[in-house]
């Protein structure tokens, strides 16, 4: 089953225009690993979402199957094969 990492419109140009990045996960893995895999070809995109210590930026929200990862286990939130991961700019900042 394909796991999908869905990008906000503002970041798609950093992924070659892709709206989402598909992954084939062999098993359940932490969110950090999903983001590492999805963003590996796109290092600038990776830095927009997470800082150099691997933490999700304050005004970026990442949802795993509709649940805000920040309210779960952060970057350790488990992601199942076939899950949908949404990266969304928070309605804050600016």
């Amino acid at each position, binding site marked *: 089953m394909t796991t999908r990492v869905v990008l906000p419109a503002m*970041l798609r140009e950093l992924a070659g225009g892709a709206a989402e990045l598909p992954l084939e996960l062999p098993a359940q893995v932490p969110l950090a690993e999903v983001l590492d895999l999805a963003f590996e070809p796109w290092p600038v995109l990776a*830095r*927009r979402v997470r800082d150099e*210590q691997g933490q999700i930026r304050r005004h970026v929200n990442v949802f795993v199957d509709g649940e805000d990862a920040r309210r779960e286990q952060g970057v350790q939130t488990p992601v199942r094969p076939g899950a949908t991961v949404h990266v969304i700019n*928070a309605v804050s*900042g600016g």
Partner: protein
Amino acid sequence: MTETILGIGTRKGLWLARSRDRRSWELDGPHFLMSEVMSLLFDTRTEPTRLLVGFRSSHWGPSLQHSDDLGATWVEHPDGSIRFPEDTGAALQATWQLAADPHDPAVVWAGTEPHALWRSDDRGETFSLNRGLWDHPHRTQWGDGAGGGAIHTVLPSPSDPGSVLVAMSAGGVYNTRDGAQSWTPGNTGIHAYFMPHDEWPEFGQCVHKVARDVADPSRLYAQNHRGVYRSDDEGQTWQSIEEGLPTNFGMTVVSHPSRADTLFLVPIASDGERVPPGAQLQVQRSEDAGKTWQTLSNGLPGDCYTNVLRDAAGMDTADEPGFYFGTRNGDVFASTDGGESFSLVAAQLPDVLCVRAVTLP
């Protein structure tokens, strides 16, 4: 014919104003729309001139990019130019200052939030953390100013390759004399009224900006949070030069790039009233290293309630250098007669965070 380029970093992007006569200006921008452009450097030490820009998006974090064609195209290092090493546990929030080294044309210094100093040996493409300052035992006691805790001033000495001054709010001035290996505070004489248990501490002063005199590298000027000072011993001890000023509060200080003992301030009424003195936007100029001051306001608005931030003023590199500053309500003013008169370069921009200028042949 020369061209002057004025970099205007704002809360919501970068504009470049270009002029051949410094009277009529063409605005190019915004670059990096919706990003806070906090630091600019026109690096003219090698050809072509490189423009370095430090900015941050409130959503997508900090970035440092450079352009070798004056803003036509931009380059960002894929891994980020400034990255805190894993063992620090820290993450870059913003690059507040970019400074060209006067001895090595490949070296660029950066001051960041959180409080850290960085050195690049490849013209600003990648930087290394200065461990001497990062590991300083005082670091955990440095406070955050209203805008955050950052190294906002980096002044390598043109006379001594081993000497660099940095300043921060609220930690004060620190100096190295051994090539940035070790650092000592240099705040003797700077008043810290807000520390009632010790108003003359070794460090912790809220220095807003420091500028170095062009003719005498050991002479420095500091605009403090309440207080204007001069040092004649390269930033170790300081004497007040605020007599004759309408107020001792302000954010910025700029030294003249070719005239000794000449500096400019943009005063603010007080820390509790952050508007121009008497609601008259004005510049204070000294031509005798702070002994006397002249009020300059020809062409600047009255009934004015904005102010000017620490890096929102600068001078170009023309034979008769122009002086520029931008306000928090997005007006940018220029003077090409040493501050005797000002004219508007741009209006209605977002609040101006930094202004730097260069004049190219």
